[in-house]
């Protein structure tokens, strides 16, 4: 298949450039998702009935509506309406980040709720207010337990960022389409894209696995693997 190999070599710099766009979107969206996801999870686990309901609605909406539709609604609709002239790249980060927050909140909530109640009690008994108890006792443990789920979310956004092409941000996948349409080397090019994604995922997941091991609490869990 010399043709396909030539096509791949030809396309590689172009695709690599796209992976920078992809990485930018992912990092932005993960950070945004984390900073919204944690408060959402806390609201769901410990909030009063109103906060909890609001958080539930947020999660329901952002998990319920396809990202593609959200991109359309925000980029062509809302942002235009309020005169917010954001680039496609920034818009993609915002929409993907807000969406990811909904998913991330469920991961954190699961972790928060797997901690026995006694520790929160102990924290309160020492006079900690809810905020301190949650930030210094609950979250440090819950976030540790969330790392595997978080790595899922990372690898999902990494690939979901491809939908951002409806706004015109040409990341890895869109670029792959372009080259494939021109050269008719679909399979080899998709394989190349898959390998690129795989490498990006692999690095991220490895880093998170490393983090997971590093912050593991000695003697705590059954599972040390």
């Amino acid at each position, binding site marked *: 298949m010399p043709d396909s190999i030539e096509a791949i070599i030809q396309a590689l710099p172009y695709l690599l450039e796209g992976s920078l766009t992809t990485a930018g979107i992912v990092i932005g969206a993960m950070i945004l998702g984390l900073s919204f996801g944690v408060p959402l999870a806390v609201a769901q686990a410990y909030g009063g009935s109103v906060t909890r309901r609001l958080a539930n609605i947020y999660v329901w909406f952002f*998990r319920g*509506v396809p990202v593609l539709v959200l991109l359309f609604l925000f980029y062509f609709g809302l942002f235009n309406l309020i005169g917010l002239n954001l680039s496609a790249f920034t818009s993609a980060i915002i929409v993907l980040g807000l969406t990811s927050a909904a998913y991330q909140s469920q991961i954190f909530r*699961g972790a928060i709720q797997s901690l026995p109640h006694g520790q929160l009690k102990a924290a309160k008994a020492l006079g900690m207010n809810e905020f301190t108890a949650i930030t210094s006792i609950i979250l440090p443990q819950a976030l540790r337990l969330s790392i595997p789920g978080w790595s899922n979310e990372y690898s999902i956004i990494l690939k979901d960022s491809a939908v951002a092409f409806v706004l015109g941000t040409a990341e890895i996948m869109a670029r792959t389409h372009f080259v494939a349409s021109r050269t008719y080397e679909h399979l080899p090019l998709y394989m190349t894209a898959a390998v690129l994604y795989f490498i990006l995922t692999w690095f991220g997941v490895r880093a998170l696995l490393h983090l997971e091991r590093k912050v593991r609490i000695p003697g705590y869990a059954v599972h040390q693997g």
Partner: protein
Amino acid sequence: MEFAPFLTEQIIPAFNRGLGNSMLLIVPSAIMGVVLGILAGTARAFGGPVLSRLAAWYAALFRGTPLVAQLFIWYFGLPNLGIYLSAYWASVIGFGMCSGAYHSEYIRGGLLSIRRGQLLAAQSLGFSTASTLRSIIIPQAFRRALPGCGNEIIYLIKYSSLAYIITFIELTGEAKILATRYFEFTEVFLVVGAYYLALVSLATWGLRVLERRLHIPGFGRT
């Protein structure tokens, strides 16, 4: 274009047809995903060196590559090996395998939160490793992983739309056909959005009921 007749004559019939097809995809692949996820997640945490390595590679491979690429390989790639899957089966297998990889990670997260004491107690009663996992560890880990697994099920509902790329026309496929034909993007996508929202709401509700039924006093809700 008038919206009302467009809605009732074009959108709704097409979407209802698509919805049926979507369900045919989602339900079997969700089940396959959960089962694979529990197996792979457990294997990663407790399988010996070989099994855990294998499971880790499975998870890395299927999480590491885009679902579209996986679908392409199941559908357009396997014919190179003389294996011809129908669009439907290529989709179900593709979704199930991918979903399982994600579930496995949530399950592993759940396993991390189980204290050693639970394992010790079971083993002291003579449980074999397999039955310790089956009766004691996994039931607890699954409960704790459930919110995460819920994410994956909802992703699956939404990703089921990718099946149109390998020619299995479900809800999104019908929507794209209508939208590109009539250029009524807003209308069509609002309606398709409503359909997905309904599906996801159903799933969210089901998951919440499940979570509540599986709730253990002393954990979770205060």
